[in-house]
């Protein structure tokens, strides 16, 4: 296909989602996990914007994308606060394997 359609944007978002998922599965560093979550949220937002554009005429998809950006910002803020709390309370360690005292 020479012309760029919705499919191209969807595949780009799918690839971005998969890279974020790989980041989530492989990483031990809490901030690394957070970056994977950011990639996944961005992929979802691209999907919303793609359908808003290619359905045409409606602006709802863009607004969902906007809410997605805001929610990701809140999530990152809280998650980094938790990372700082972990860093202080677990001997300057933010690797998620080590933080397991709640495990039964």
């Amino acid at each position: 296909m020479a012309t760029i359609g919705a499919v191209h944007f969807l595949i780009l978002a799918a690839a971005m989602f998969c890279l974020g998922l790989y980041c989530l599965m492989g990483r031990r560093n809490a901030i690394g996990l957070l970056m994977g979550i950011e990639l996944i949220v961005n992929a979802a937002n691209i999907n919303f914007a793609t359908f808003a554009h290619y359905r045409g005429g409606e602006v709802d998809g863009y607004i969902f994308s906007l809410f997605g950006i805001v929610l990701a910002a809140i999530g990152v803020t809280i998650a980094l606060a938790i990372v700082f709390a972990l860093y202080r309370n677990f001997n300057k360690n933010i690797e998620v394997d080590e933080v397991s005292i709640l495990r039964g």
Partner: protein
Amino acid sequence: MAFTVMFYCAALFTLYGAAMVAFSKNIIYSAFSLLISFIGVVVIYALLDADFLAIAQLVLYVGGILVLILFAIMLTNKISNASSSNPSRSQFLSFVTVLVIFVGLFFTIIKAPWQVSAGTQELGPITDSIGDALLTKYLLPFEIVSVLLLVGLIGAVVIARKENIEKAGNTNLSATSEQGRSL
């Protein structure tokens, strides 16, 4: 034609950044690759006629979230051991799983009969229509999100602040974790 070239450049940018985030050993390189990826996404939004989203992405992600992540990395990692600061585990297994998921998504996207309109109507600049929708149809979610932002702000301050009163509790906690590790 220009649209095609722009799309492939932006896609390359985005995916290169995302791949470096996922595969880089050094977490500082990961953070700067996240910057590349976000800028690619800005161009993608611009190509999708979402001018307001592109600027919001630039201001919020590149100007806000990324700086926050970089600050967190600088505060929690020693620069001396930065090269081993982002260890990965069970790489082969996760790679195979993610590859299977991607192939599944790929063929689903290719095969699915998406209900897209052939000729998209030009919305023009979407900023004014987004503003209209936010203050009429989406007024309640808009207000709820603003309250949620306030809750997040206060919550982050409460969680991250140093508690003098809980000092004893904190030392207890780290002692417990020490104990757990030695066990």
